[in-house]
């Protein structure tokens, strides 16, 4: 299945909740697909709409904001 869609996802993770949860997922050894690349922010309130548009411009198939 070489044609399988393998999306590149860019994530903005809030340090206090989503980033912490992602750490916790690691601690519990939950397994999830390795398509996500993350940027830690101190709060998703930091995420300017411009960042999201820029992400798409740079070739992201999807943007994930977790907060």
């Amino acid at each position, binding site marked *: 299945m070489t044609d399988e869609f393998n999306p*590149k996802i860019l994530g903005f993770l809030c340090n206090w909740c989503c*980033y912490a949860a992602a*750490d916790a997922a*690691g*601690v519990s050894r939950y397994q999830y697909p*390795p398509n996500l*690349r993350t*940027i830690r922010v101190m709060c998703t309130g930091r995420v300017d709409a411009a960042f999201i548009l820029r992400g798409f411009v*740079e070739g992201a198939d999807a943007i994930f904001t977790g907060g």
Partner: protein
Amino acid sequence: MRPRFIDADKCTACGLCTTYCPRHLQDTFNEGLNLTRPIHIDYPQAVPATYYIDPAACLHVTEDTCQICVPVCRSHAINFNQKPKVKKIAVGAVVLAPGFGKVPDSTLAKYSYGVHADVLTSLEFERLLNPSGPYQGNVLCLSDQRHPKSLAFIQCVGSRDLGCGNGYCSSVCCMYAIKEAMVAKEHDPELDIIIFYMDMRTQGKDFDAARKRAEEQFGIKFVRAKVAGVTPWGAKGLRLTYSTMDGRHRFDPFDMVVLSVGLDAPKDARKISKLLDVELNKFDFCRTDPFHPLNSSQPGIYVAGAFQGPCDIPESVTQSSAAAGIAAGLLKKQRGKGYVVKSYPAEHDITGEDIRIGVFTCHCGINIGGVVDVPRVDKYTDGMENVVYHSESMYSCSQDAQEMLKKTIKEHNLNRVVIAACSPRTHEPLFQETLKDAGLNRSLFEMVNIRDQCSWVHANEPEAATEKSMDLIRMAVAKANRIQPLAEQTVPVTDKALVLGGGVAGLTAALTLAEQGFHCTLVEKEAELGGNLLVIKQTIEGVGTAATLKKLISRVKSSALIEVITKAELITINGFVGNFSSVLKVQEGKKTAEHTIDHGVIILATGGREHKPAQVLGQELVKSKQIITQQELETRLFGKAKKRAPSSVVMVQCAGSRGDDLNYCSKVCCNHAVKNALHIKEINPESQVFVLYRDLRTYGYAEEKYQQAREKGVVFIPYEVDNKPRITKKGQKVEISFHDPLLQEDVVMQPEVIALSVGIVPQGTEALSKLLKVPVTEHKFFMEAHVKLRPVEMPVAGVYVCGLAHSPKPLNETIVQAQAAAAKAAMPLVKGSVSVEPIVSHVDQEACIGCGLCASLCPYQAIQIIKVDKKRKAETIVASCKACGICASHCPTFAISMGGFTNEQIIAQIEAFGNSIEE
């Protein structure tokens, strides 16, 4: 002070000496599983990171020959002229923390320990599992290095064992056995593991969940049985003889057996006792009483850790902080004398310098290196923009790695550091400290999480995990190219505490703070102080609580430093560590009034209460006067049943906890049941008492009381989760039916009383969680900052927790936790100031147009509009700013930037993300 024979200042820990040393020696750090040399270091991360010579094995010390090592050492650190030194020190207090001792080998003999190489103690197995152990973490039989196919853990070796004089439960073995079994399964998923146990005592916070995971996720089997012995069997194997609940004897072959040995009293216990004149208990641990769990019999001498009684790491850490707090109270007049403040080298000014980035990629033992191809990742960083240095590290957080990092920063003139390892949430402060030690501003640092969010979650996709690591590092380097040093700021502290909750936890915390000389306000929502201790009449040791509680309350009330406010609750709280401002709603007669209190820290001690279950044992609770809770039974035994205890009582454990309404163990119910059972037997020895239980968790010294209860004729009968006792109503009477595994038949009883152990729920945690923005667990208990290392601190700075609001626990643990919370809370008060994280927002007033959008959006009221030259400008109140960045993302003129998270930096990261796709 015994000599190391090595000059610590000169030793570079290069290890050359060990390779030349001609003599072999069993490696005690690896529990004798492999060999080392008389001149060695226990492990690379050891503190101090200096080699030493074992005088008992060194040829020069014992035989006056050899000395090969002396010329080998390039730094001339070896010095056989060192002599033992005696140093006299004057101290005002002593904390005893000598740890625990080993159960004697004679106790292990019946399990063929010492006879067959594949019978190991749990600590030996711990080393075997360790990547730095003898087989690099591979689970191999010591006899012939083959992979074992079957492994048995035997619980309660040297604990709960009157044969070896250890009538107590060591409290930690069940949990470590589960952990070791899971780690072994991670190393070798094919391995069959059975844990043979009497009761699984996983009573700690969220420990039951781990047991469940071991069973369901890892396929580890648990068998309730008594193991009679282990004998060599066949050519290589071992045979385990055990009897199950039904009284049948069975034999099973295993390749390897791990003995879950208990914690013995420290070897030096008697010596310490004699030297310091402190009393020991009958098991040779330090004697203390339940109301003063850390005070030895000698004033000024306190005890912490396993010497106080067998306990796990969080309990040890809590006790240690508590002991520090009590000692600090004793010595408050001497505070600050002889104290040396850590100094850092002057900060290196990097203005105008070229950017020089160093990238360090960590293996974290096998945690990262086992999945991610670290050498490939390291190589990938070569040639990235301004990366002038890169390397790998086994454990980048270790002490030796910090020294190495400092050295590398200096040697290569690094002015930005990127570390790819674990989570910045846990390890950023450590590395930033090292940067400061190396003269760099701590903000010149970026961390990449390739463990928690990469190797651990993509364990089966090494290639993808490696690529992800490379991408994340590239993004971090892009950001690192744009980071700038940020100035440190400090804010003064209001040296006063607020304690919420007037139960034993709150009372103890307030008193411990007052004893250190700090003001505090104690807030209780009821009219009376005392909390649960008002209804708990005696401890499991049989000591009455009333007198102690009365004394505690009167000490609190008479303290000039403590203000007690009852019938009050917290309604709002503003501010941050060092500068909180809280509003209390206080009931005054028929009116309510509001009080505002300024304080620097807050301790949450809102407690818990007995659960009121709707579901019991998988069925709806049967309502009857004959069915009561353990607490109600206790009240009755001190009230109208004082002289006439019920003639027959059936107690049912986990009736509410562990599965029905509450999906956790409440830790205290088994003790409570045993306590009440003994009390009934004391009032009326003829009374029939039955205790139906799943795992009887009388851990620690409570095990003795369990033993006593059985001797007095209390009958303990285990039941299985899939066959719970059934309670029904038969006319006016209640009936309970259950399966007796010993008799192998179903039994029906109509006792006078059925007492349910219903468990404990927290109080007030949800509302406070919202007010203070602190997390709670799924069971609504406050969630501490780190389970092991920061057990009484909340993730929000300046907020501490103790007592039942943290998790269910008995009285002595509550007292210790309260003392620990008070010790931790005193730290900012002692210092008098707190540092503000440099990541707060900053307004460029040139670019600001004074629209005020940011001020209206800020959730923390941390932006004010001021007039500068008659123009409106925004300004950050740094101490209130939580660095969320909402202001920055909404500013129409891009006038606000966030320290460490600037637009430029984030855009660079996004661009670097994009580069990977083009590849």
